[in-house]
């Protein structure tokens, strides 16, 4: 096992690090670093607004939804580049937690199954967080439990 970056990975890391250093909302770094499981909040700021602003900034510079194709607002990056980005983004990545479902689940599902016209209409607003998504599906991973959403007929409504 070799945990060192390849030359290409190291170059990507340096580029990511430089951009984050120059653009991240550093006034919140301390609070975000101290946030623990079960509590990500900012004093004196609306976290949703801060998160959306950071997301938009990333999208404008091509650093949002790294694993998405460029045509839908992503970067077309490799999985390892996405990991490197997450390592470098560090505490600021906590701001993205509210977009995980839209970017990680809804978007990729649309990419796999929606028509091209729909993909062009609905996907590009997601990376800059002009729109966000929720999943009314069973929680991952795949478990053949009871159906999660909107069972028909209505008399059989169950929890998911």
């Amino acid at each position, binding site marked *: 096992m070799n945990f060192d970056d390849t030359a290409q990975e190291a170059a990507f890391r340096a580029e990511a690090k430089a951009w984050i250093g120059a653009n991240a909302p550093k006034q919140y770094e301390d609070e975000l670093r101290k946030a623990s499981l079960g509590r990500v909040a900012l004093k004196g700021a609306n976290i949703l607004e801060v998160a959306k602003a950071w997301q938009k900034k990333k999208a404008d510079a091509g650093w949002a939804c790294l694993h998405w194709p460029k045509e839908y607002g992503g970067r077309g990056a490799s999985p390892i580049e996405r990991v490197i980005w*997450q390592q470098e983004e560090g505490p600021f990545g906590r701001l993205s937690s509210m977009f995980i479902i839209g970017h990680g689940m809804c978007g990729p599902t649309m990419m796999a199954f929606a028509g091209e016209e729909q993909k062009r209409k609905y996907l590009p607003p997601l990376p800059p967080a002009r729109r966000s998504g929720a999943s*009314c599906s069973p929680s991952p991973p795949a478990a053949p439990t009871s159906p999660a959403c909107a069972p028909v007929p209505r008399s059989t409504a169950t929890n*998911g």
Partner: protein
Amino acid sequence: MINGQKIWTSGAHYSDYGILLTRTDPTVAKHKGLTMFFLDMKSPGVEVRPIKQASGASDFNEVYFTDVRIPDSQRLGNVNDGWNVSLTTLMNERMSIGAGVATGFPELFDFCNSLMLEDGPAIENRAVRSKLASWAVKASGLKYTSMRAISALSRGERPGPENSIGKLVAGSMIQDVATYALDLQGAAGALSGPEDAEVAGKFQAMLLRAPGTRVEGGTDEIMRNIIAERVLGLPGDIRVDKDVPFNKIPTKGRA
């Protein structure tokens, strides 16, 4: 036309769109009669009710659908093929391994470094050190398991089901770590407000959130099944309703 309800919808209160798995045929086995759609969360008939958590936060919702009309053009995949579509949704979620899982260990280590017990600093107490050492080993195991997955990604491979181990181990660990941190605080652990607690209620918040980790994204039991069946190759768990039509699955003790 959709009627029904879904609980634990993370972030529905700030979402513009949703994807929705519906039961379109109750006369076939449970995973066969599902169809996936996407919808505007502001559609008439969609009601988002926040859930108040033990920690006081409201990150999740219960979403109600009353006579919600979704055009067929918003269907994702074929009718009754929603299970396959949802597997795509879930596989994508599993690919996001990234920066590793929260264990609570770094927070506990910092806390023990500053905490004073009756007979001296907590970090010099043998019982505390023994606990810290065990958790340090576990945290390192998790770290290098995640590094192994990252190495696989770097080589262009897809991480496999063995990555289910991370959340399984970390979920119960963070619960134990938070409980221990509260024990160390003694009576001060029972706080009346975050301002009054040691390190501003950090471990209290962690303790209240931790059980959720063991449920979300696949419960501990499901993770163990995945590891048993897909990693270790053990015989499958008994699934009595796998081939039973959904509307024939008993929901009462006696008919």
